[in-house]
């Protein structure tokens, strides 16, 4: 058995109280006793150990040791000699003592710094985990990602054809070309449910291109991606292996069920490689792209591909980019030769992976957002640092006498400045540590926010070296930048007059003036940040005020994902019909509808058709519209009114019904100013497959709140094109309960159906409001923090002023000044700063608004309401912060004040 050791905490405590050799001897004695006693009774031994450590005699002993002469060889309780280490040690000890002597000052300064550093640490932590992680691939600068460039300059996924083109045409520059596609899958849980996990469908050479070898087992073989649907094999991530399977070494070679089908686990990826979705978002598993017939049924080929290619030795990324563009050009030329009417317009673009943070398409926005957040928290830090400077400045004035005495006794100015700098470094160090802790808590809270995505994201917030370095860096800069001036100030006072005590009010006033400038600056910064918060709150408000075109009140929505291998379209249609019948008989449900795609949801299905008498857009042979299949009650259930005509009728779900409803925007596009009802469309350009327009529905927001009225098409529900459908119910009970009713009915019908969303219509809208809400929340928190810090500064300055002017107040009151007048006098001094700071702040805000305008929804960067709100909030809160200490001035007892120094 291992020898027992005394309680660790008590041991550490003892070591910190009793330094040096005596400390060691005492600890040794106690440990020896503990060993002996714990053989008889371990609990009692621990208690006794604690009692010995906490005994008051330990403190007496400490005093006793410290009063010993520090002759080497006797009781050396402190570092020897008088070298630089000893000097630093002395300085630190002195600084600590001096800070502990004024605990209120120290507490406020540390807290203020922590509040300033905390948000910086939180944002850094968050951004770092999301944006600034490595891809974990070998030589990222040797990997080129290839995207399709859309006509409006967006980076888009590739079709399978592009992959073939690049693989064929790029052999000169590329060693190997891989393709991968994001795939949200479901691992079956033991209770028969499904757990959503993000994965990737990849070509067989994907891991070779990334330069990643399996940590266990193997990656894919070339033949595993050759024949569609024949190789149900899977590689899982280290995280999934540890998290879901408890690092079971027997899993490799075993089976797991993905989307309802067994897959053989062939390998586990190394922990350093988290896939190619995004550096901060881990891929949970990889499957061969040849499995798309099982995973994306109904598709002829896997789509939405990102192509990644590894450069041949000696070839550069720039050469590859040219080759990629040439491949697209050659393809276009071939297409034109085949069919001069359909002009080929493929554009491919290569990007070196080393230049990609998340995705070349939105790296710009992400970096801008990052800069905005860092800018905001940077301003908070600035406010906090100004606080520190203000506190140090007041303290410097108070300690002038002390400094003068030290100078008179022969201390050099350099030594005193060094001493004061060490004090502020110590403050900053403690503040940074506290801020780091706060920041970690905040970052964890931020990451825990549930993102409105079908799959949970796994951002890991870790306390890494970079974050420590970052925090230590800003603390150092804060300490030196804002500690130096007060330190110089403190040592500048003329020694003789200071010691005589007549370096009077005139000099003080100047120093208080310096602090006034600082407080004004804080007010300015707070106004700008409050304005930013107000802007984003207004932006959120505007977003929630947008009419989405359907009623989101009091409805429940359930998204069902049927496995198309189990339920084909006809079966899904029958399933929905039965579900509708059952729900309609439920007294709590007023109306129920099913659609293949909810408005403001992800995913889309298009259909193409000819409109007799209306020419298709240039370069295209047919018209294209996005389409949803809906049941007859859809429009009434969602509260979408019909401008013209009628809704679908119950019999019209059969495939030959030949009816269609268009959105108002679609009707206007094809027959402006005329009635659309009764017009005919030819699906796929085939006159045999005619669709008669039976109704025109009001426009609904399909993709985003900001979109223009969108042409859209509704067909009768016939099982949809994918396995997914959404059931919406409205009724006489709360929305959440309605969703539960629908869920239970779906379960009762078929327990195998996977429900990926059970909630209210309000929840459904969550994701469109997510970004504005997140921005408004974050910036409100940041603005609020800045306001608190600035008010701490103002409060400190006013109360300091009051304490310095106690005598003056006494005289004024002795001479008959009203209490109110005295308060007003003090208050006025504070409020002038608020007014000046606020006014400058408004001016700066206008510029700030212009910068962030791109992030706002539906309001200008100079929104008048926000411009009004920011100074108003600032004024009210700041007035309170100034009033509290000012009131103290009126409580001054004139007699006592005059007697005081």
């Amino acid at each position, binding site marked *: 058995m291992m020898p027992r*050791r005394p309680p660790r905490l008590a041991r550490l405590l003892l070591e910190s109280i009793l330094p040096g*050799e*005596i400390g*060691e*001897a*005492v*600890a*040794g*004695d*106690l*440990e*020896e*006793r503990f*060993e002996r006693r714990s053989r008889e009774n371990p609990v009692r031994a621990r208690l006794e150990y604690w*009692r*010995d450590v906490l*005994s*008051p*005699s*330990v*403190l*007496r*002993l400490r005093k*006793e*040791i410290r009063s*010993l002469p520090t002759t080497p060889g006797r*009781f050396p309780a402190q570092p020897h000699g008088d070298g630089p280490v000893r000097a630093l040690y002395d300085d630190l000890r002195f600084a600590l003592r001096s800070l502990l002597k004024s605990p209120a000052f120290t507490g406020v300064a540390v807290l203020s710094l922590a509040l300033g550093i905390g948000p910086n640490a939180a944002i850094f932590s968050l951004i770092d985990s999301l944006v600034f992680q490595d891809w974990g691939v070998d030589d990222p600068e040797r990997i080129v990602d290839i995207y399709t460039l859309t006509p409006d300059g967006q980076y888009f996924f590739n079709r399978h054809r592009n992959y073939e083109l690049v693989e064929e045409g790029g052999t000169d520059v590329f060693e190997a070309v891989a393709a991968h596609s994001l795939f949200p899958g479901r691992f079956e849980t033991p209770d028969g449910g499904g757990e959503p996990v993000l994965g990737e469908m990849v070509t067989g050479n994907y891991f070779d291109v990334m330069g990643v070898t399996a940590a266990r087992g193997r990656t894919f073989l070339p033949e595993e991606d050759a024949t569609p649907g024949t190789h149900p094999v899977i590689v899982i991530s280290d995280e999934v292996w540890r998290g879901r399977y408890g690092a079971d070494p027997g899993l490799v070679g075993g089976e797991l069920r993905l989307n309802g089908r067994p897959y053989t686990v062939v390998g586990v990826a190394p922990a350093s490689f988290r896939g190619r979705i995004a550096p901060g978002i881990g891929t949970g598993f990889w499957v061969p792209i040849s499995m798309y017939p099982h995973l994306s049924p109904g598709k002829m080929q896997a789509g939405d591909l990102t192509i990644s290619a590894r450069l041949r030795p000696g070839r550069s990324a720039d050469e590859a980019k040219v080759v990629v563009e040439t491949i697209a050009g050659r393809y276009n030329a071939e297409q034109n030769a085949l069919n001069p009417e359909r002009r080929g317009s493929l554009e491919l673009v290569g990007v070196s992976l080393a230049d990609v943070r998340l995705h070349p398409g939105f790296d710009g926005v992400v970096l801008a957002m990052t800069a905005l957040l860092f800018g905001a928290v940077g301003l908070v830090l600035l406010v906090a640092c100004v606080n520190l400077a203000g506190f140090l400045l007041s303290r410097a004035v108070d300690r002038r006498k002390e400094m003068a005495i030290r100078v008179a006794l022969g201390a050099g100015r350099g030594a005193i400045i060094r001493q004061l700098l060490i004090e502020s470094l110590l403050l900053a160090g403690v503040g940074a540590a506290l801020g780091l802790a706060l920041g970690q808590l905040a970052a964890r809270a931020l990451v825990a926010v549930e993102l409105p995505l079908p799959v949970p994201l796994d951002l890991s917030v870790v306390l890494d070296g970079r974050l420590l370095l970052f925090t230590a860096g800003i603390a150092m800069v804060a300490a030196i930048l804002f500690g130096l001036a007060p330190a110089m100030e403190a040592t500048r006072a003329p020694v003789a007059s200071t010691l005589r005590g007549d370096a009077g009010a005139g000099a003080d006033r100047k120093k208080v003036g310096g602090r006034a400038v600082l407080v004004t600056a804080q007010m300015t910064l707070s106004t700008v940040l409050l304005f930013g918060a107000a802007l984003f709150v207004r932006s959120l408000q505007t977003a929630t005020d947008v009419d989405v075109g359907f009623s989101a009140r009091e409805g429940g929505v359930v998204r069902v994902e049927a496995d198309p291998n189990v339920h084909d379209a006809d079966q899904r249609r029958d399933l929905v019909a039965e579900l509708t019948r059952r729900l309609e008989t439920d007294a709590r449900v007023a109306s129920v509808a099913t659609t293949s795609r909810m408005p403001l949801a992800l995913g889309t299905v298009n259909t193409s058709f000819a409109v007799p008498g209306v020419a298709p857009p240039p370069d295209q042979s047919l018209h294209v519209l996005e389409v949803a299949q809906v049941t007859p009650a859809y429009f009434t259930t969602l509260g979408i009114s019909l401008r013209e005509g009628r809704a679908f009728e119950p019999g019209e779900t059969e495939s030959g019904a030949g009816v269609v409803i268009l959105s108002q925007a679609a009707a206007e596009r094809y027959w402006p100013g005329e009635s659309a009802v009764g017009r005919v469309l030819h699906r796929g350009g085939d006159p045999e497959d005619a669709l008669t327009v039976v109704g025109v529905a009001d426009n609904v927001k399909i993709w985003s709140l900001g979109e223009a009225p969108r042409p859209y098409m509704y067909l009768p529900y016939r099982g949809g094109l994918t396995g997914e459908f959404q059931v919406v119910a409205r009724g006489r009970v709360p929305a959440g309960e309605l969703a539960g009713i629908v869920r239970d009915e779906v379960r009762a019908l078929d327990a195998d159906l996977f429900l990926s969303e059970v909630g209210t219509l309000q929840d459904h809208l969550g994701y469109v409001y997510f970004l504005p809400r997140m921005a408004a929340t974050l910036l409100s928190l940041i603005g609020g923090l800045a306001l608190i810090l600035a008010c701490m500064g103002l409060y400190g300055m006013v109360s300091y002023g009051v304490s310095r002017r106690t005598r003056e107040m006494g005289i004024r009151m002795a001479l008959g000044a009203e209490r109110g007048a005295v308060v007003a006098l003090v208050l006025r001094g504070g409020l002038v700063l608020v007014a000046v700071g606020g006014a400058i702040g408004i001016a700066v805000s206008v510029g700030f608004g212009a910068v962030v305008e791109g992030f706002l929804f539906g309001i200008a960067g100079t929104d008048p309401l926000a411009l009004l709100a920011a100074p108003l909030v600032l004024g009210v809160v700041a007035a309170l912060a100034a009033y509290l200490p000012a009131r103290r001035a009126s409580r001054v007892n004139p007699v006592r004040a005059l007697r005081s120094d």
Partner: protein
Amino acid sequence: MTTDTPGDFEQQVLLAVWRLGAAAYGGSVRDELEARTGRDIAQGAVYVTLVRLEKKGLLRSSRSEPTPVRGGKSKRCFAITPAGIEGLRVARRTFERLWDGLPATTPGEALP
């Protein structure tokens, strides 16, 4: 050489160190005191007195090599000095003079 008369607890500690001889260090002194007086004594209290007595010159101390037991920590061994022995004698003589002529009492016996 004149010294202050050691106090009550100081005398107890001096006696324990003297009695223990070469085996006298913080832990053994405490054990000895606890065994002979029947009281619990804090280790810190023992050391405060040991250090104070050394300052007064009634004890001297030396550092022993670390031992594998007691977590590898070194010991400080104490020994009584001639001044320490003298201090104890003075204290004892003082007490004896004060006792002189009084009856020795035993527990349970009523005082006159």
